[in-house]
């Protein structure tokens, strides 16, 4: 009865029928690499979990050096299901970074960045950088010993930027050193600025995905006789959406298990006057860069070694961001991109492994 009245009322005001109709007609290519399509949706799902659990944590979290640690402790021990919400938030952040990397590398290896999807790639790469920024800014928020010193080491790296280094460090820290001002600042980035930018970018990314559809890898195209129209496809609604839902549910179950068996630990409260614990290191997704910086000599051709490494990494990130515009369209250039991607992936994996085999704090 209610539905009978509500549906026409809504249809008169919102283009729901058009949207459903568009989704019913939308198809997704179905081939042997289709599995990789799900990582984009999984990243988006985990972002949704981050927003939900983050909003719940905000009800109790207090962003100041004197109260942050205690408020997280309160959430973990006193708030009903607080331990679950915080652990899901932390684990989901890590899975989101992993999914975002998997999505980026799958798009790279399947050459989905090609014309006309250049802007889809750029917005996606920017979203990966934003995800890392979310991780960096959120890491300090519990104000524990490890996060405090890791943030000090992390923000120190900005000092190597020639000319603007000092300004960048002050900008990130809100002063000369990591203090309560840094916490408040990073909290602001984490819950306001980054989510706003991320929402806009996700909107753009999804719009572009809808506009251009899923890319078909060149090898599949070649097999299908160079005609994308002959590639098998499945309806988005319900075929692809149900498979997406299957993956999301599995991820949700994994999150619940991780949070129950390995609740995210809080550690000891940060003490600015205490000596840094041995083997201090950042989150796993920054370890490759952290380890690479360690291997740099103090000077390279008379220039600060760290500055050279930071410049090289920044150039790599910029090249990755602008990949569709710098990579060629020939089969040979695609092979080069695959090899470069493999080298970058192997380098990051090796550096991460080396860092993980070092001492732990």
């Amino acid at each position, binding site marked *: 009865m209610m539905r009978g009245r509500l549906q026409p009322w809504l249809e008169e005001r919102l283009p729901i029928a058009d949207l459903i109709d568009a989704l019913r007609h939308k198809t997704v290519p179905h081939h042997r690499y289709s599995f990789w399509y799900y990582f984009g949706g999984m990243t988006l799902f985990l972002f949704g979990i981050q927003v939900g659990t983050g909003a719940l944590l905000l009800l109790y979290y207090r962003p100041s050096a004197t109260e942050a640690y205690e408020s997280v402790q309160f959430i973990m*021990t006193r708030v009903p299901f607080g331990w679950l919400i915080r652990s899901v938030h932390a684990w989901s952040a890590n899975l989101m970074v992993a999914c975002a990397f998997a999505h980026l590398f799958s798009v790279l290896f399947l050459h989905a960045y090609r014309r006309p999807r250049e802007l889809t790639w750029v917005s996606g790469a920017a979203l990966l950088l934003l995800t890392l920024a979310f991780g960096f800014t959120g890491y300090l928020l519990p104000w524990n010993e490890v996060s405090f010193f890791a943030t000090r080491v992390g923000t120190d790296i900005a000092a190597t930027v020639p000319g603007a280094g000092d300004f960048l460090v002050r900008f990130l820290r809100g002063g000369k050193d990591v203090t309560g001002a840094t916490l408040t600042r990073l909290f602001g980035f984490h819950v306001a600025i980054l989510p706003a930018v991320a929402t806009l970018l996700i909107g753009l990314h999804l719009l572009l995905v809808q506009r251009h559809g899923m890319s078909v890898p060149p090898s599949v195209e070649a097999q299908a006789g160079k005609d994308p129209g002959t590639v098998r496809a499945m309806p988005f609604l319900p*075929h692809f959406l149900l498979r997406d839902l*299957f993956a999301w549910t*599995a991820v*949700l179950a994994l999150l619940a298990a991780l949070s129950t068996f390995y*609740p995210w630990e809080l550690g000891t409260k940060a003490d600015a006057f205490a000596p840094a614990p041995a083997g201090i290191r950042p989150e796993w997704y920054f370890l490759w860069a952290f380890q690479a910086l360690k291997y740099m000599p103090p000077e390279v051709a008379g220039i600060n070694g760290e500055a050279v490494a930071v410049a090289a990494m920044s150039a790599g990130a910029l090249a990755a961001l602008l990949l569709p515009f710098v990579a060629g369209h020939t089969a040979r250039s695609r092979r080069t991109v695959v090899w470069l991607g493999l080298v970058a992936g192997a380098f990051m994996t090796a550096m991460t492994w080396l860092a993980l085999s070092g001492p732990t704090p």
Partner: protein
Amino acid sequence: MKRAVTAAWIVLVFLMPSHLAWAQGGLEAATAAFKDDVHATAGLTCDSCHLASAGGGGQYAAIPRTAIAPGCARCHSDPAYMRTFDPQVRVDQFAQYLTSGHGRRMAAGEVRVATCSDCHAAHGITRVRDPRAPVAAANVATTCARCHGDAARMAPFGRDAAPPVDWSASVHAAALVKRGDTSAPTCNSCHGSHGATPPGVADVATVCAQCHTREAELFRASPKNAIFEAIGQGECLACHGNHRVESPADAWIGLEEGAVCAQCHDEVLGGAQTIRTVRQQLDRLSAALSSADAVLTRSEEAGMLVDDGRLALREAREHLLHSRVLVHAFAEKPLSDMAAQGAAAARRAQDAGEDAMRDLQVRRRGLSVATLLVLAFLATLGLKIRRLP
């Protein structure tokens, strides 16, 4: 003729390059050491000590050992002069030295005993607060042991050389040397420095009470005090010894072999029941602490936060420490009250740990139910996907 040959021989020996080199080397070493000397910093020179001691004869002379302390005292006992360097500097060192075992023997002409330069060095003197100084807290024992740990040196004075070795095995040495706690007692903390003298049996408790105030208070109010005084027993020494003060253990309290109480008490003598009760109280509290610690550790290893439990456990541990101090009352009552408070705190810690373990089980059961539901949902979803055209 014979005398002339001897004289010529002596002159020749003195002129030999090796002797000259030795004399030159000694002078160079002294000059080099004096560069870092606190006196050089204050503007004093070699003449300040050497010419003055030689009566201003214009020639450096080795200062006789009996003249060293009076020589130092010319300045260090002069308040007006010393104030020009440091308004708070003490000037009673020489007066104290004269009352010490070292000073009294030196005044009697015994030059083998210690004087200022033996402890402070001769030419490289640094302030006591300088960690390099031989009289800095961490170095005092080593400095004293140079003589007091040398059996050959101590034998003529009828003293054994064991105290430095014994002290090295003590809790005090562990605190000072291993943990770097400069407030921990070393030789001069009990014996004095410039007025160094062995504390007599009657004074030992006063010496220990400088730091162990509460234990001393309890002991003096206890029935043991009068008994020990009557038999001339050193208060703290009877159970703890002097230089080799070891970390006390609850096992010391008891009537079985090896227990400290058993040195004087047995099942027949009075006090046996008190000894047994005190030991039981301490054992029970220790066991409660261990049990609570184990359950809290298990909870923490499972990822649970049990800060409240840890706080209660810390409180229980403090009560255990206080209970151990109350052993010095040699009575059941104050200790049993304190041990009861400790047991209550340990119970709270245990409860916090057990609650956390129960909570963990609830979480895991909840997860199992949720996982079953999720699996059922996934199976349904999988069937639905397979049935799609």
